[in-house]
């Protein structure tokens, strides 16, 4: 065994335990005075988790907690046992995030360069980077667009590009926040199929309920609390009942 200096933090991977999944313990969050999440205790170990709820109910805030984009005002969020408050870099390597608006998450002018961005951040050597970028572009039908300006892609292609930019980093878990909201039916279906085929653990926030077919577990969020936690069928029914009385 290697001797560790007293006081030095252990390397993140020494303590990470993938079997633990994502844990929220007594999580609350407020923006200023406004309480957006309250008393959330959850553990995600399922491969497919959906989150639904009214506008402003706190879904995106919940999603952002899972990879440390938002740090909880109360309680702790742990990914594989790593605290998002203290080990945010290690957490973000494990949890990818896809946003609603592809335009805001494509950060380089051309397609291949954008996909390479996350790998550069991870210090992946150029040869391996090029190979992985090419592989991902081919898998998602963007191979012919490698050197095209990103702004000339269609909305659906842009979202595929945004997803490719996350997948190329090979995170073990991916959070999607309304990935199909801006897409037409055909592209929404493509993205839904893509998500269904992923090996990763997936958490999806969505208003498009058919996206949740075949999911293991669906949460209904209302007023900052998880009010239902069940299989897609019962959860969607509870959500409809909740909306019917508004």
């Amino acid at each position, binding site marked *: 065994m290697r001797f560790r200096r007293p*006081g*030095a*933090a252990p390397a993140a991977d020494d303590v990470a335990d993938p079997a633990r999944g994502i844990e929220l313990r007594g999580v609350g969050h407020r923006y200023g005075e406004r309480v957006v999440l309250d008393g959330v205790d959850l553990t995600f170990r399922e491969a497919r988790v959906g989150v639904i709820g009214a506008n402003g109910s706190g879904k995106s805030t919940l999603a*952002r907690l899972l*990879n*440390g*984009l938002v*740090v909880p005002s109360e309680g702790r969020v742990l990914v594989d046992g790593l605290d*998002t*408050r*203290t*080990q*945010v*870099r*290690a957490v*973000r*390597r494990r949890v*990818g*995030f896809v*946003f609603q*608006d592809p*335009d*805001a*998450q*494509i*950060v*380089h*002018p*051309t397609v291949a*360069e*954008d996909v*390479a*961005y*996350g790998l550069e*951040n*991870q*210090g992946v050597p150029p040869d391996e980077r090029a190979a992985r970028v090419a592989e991902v572009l081919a898998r998602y039908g963007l191979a012919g667009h*490698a*050197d095209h*300006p*990103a*702004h000339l892609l269609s909305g659906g292609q842009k979202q595929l590009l945004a997803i490719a*930019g*996350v997948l190329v*980093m090979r995170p073990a878990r991916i959070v999607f926040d309304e990935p199909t909201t801006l897409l037409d039916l055909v592209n929404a279906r493509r993205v839904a199929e893509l998500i269904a085929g992923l090996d990763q653990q997936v958490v999806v926030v969505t208003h498009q309920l058919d996206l949740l077919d075949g999911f293991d577990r669906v949460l209904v969020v209302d007023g900052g609390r998880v009010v239902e936690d069940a299989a897609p069928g019962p959860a969607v029914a509870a959500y409809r009942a909740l909306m019917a009385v508004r």
Partner: protein
Amino acid sequence: MTLALYVPRASVVHRVPAGAKLLALATLAIALFWLPTLAGAAAALLGTVAVGLLVARLPVAVLARQARAVGWWLVALLAVHALTTDLRTGAQVALRLLTLVLAAAVVTATTRVSEMVRVVERLCAPLRLVGVRPARVGLVVALALRFIPVLVERADRIRAAQAARGGSGRGVRALRTTVAPLLVQVLQMAHDVSEALDARGADDVPSRPRRRRTQEAPR
């Protein structure tokens, strides 16, 4: 949007390192100003077009678009010189401008933005001494190139939405009524983009020196 961007081809010009191309461009500019002759400018123009079309095999449209963009400037230069000095000087000045614009177009069309960004990063390397992170400067350049077309499109969308409700698309008032909502969108987008950068590990740069910390703290 007339941002000349990379046109993929397997040519020698494409393979020349970005730094060398930028150096050549700078040399050409200095030469054109130091040796102001009509024949020299004409030769430089011919050379530039030949390199662009024959060696780099760029589509004529790429160069034509850039030439059109400065077309009125060329005419104005000619006219002003015809009135104040003479037509010959006017022609030489106009040719010089056209040559530089086309040469710049050839460089941008044959160089990936990422390579260009790397040159910028290398040029900024000395700034490390005063605490600037060159990678960040490079990212800023890439982001600017990426988001100029996005912003133009958003501005168009705002103008269209206003026109659809009877607003006039022209004049100072229209400019003012476009700028305010655009600014709101830009700020929102800046926030979204910074989140996206974070999510993809913008702060996770292991190959570069990092401040020593026992624990990572969220920003």
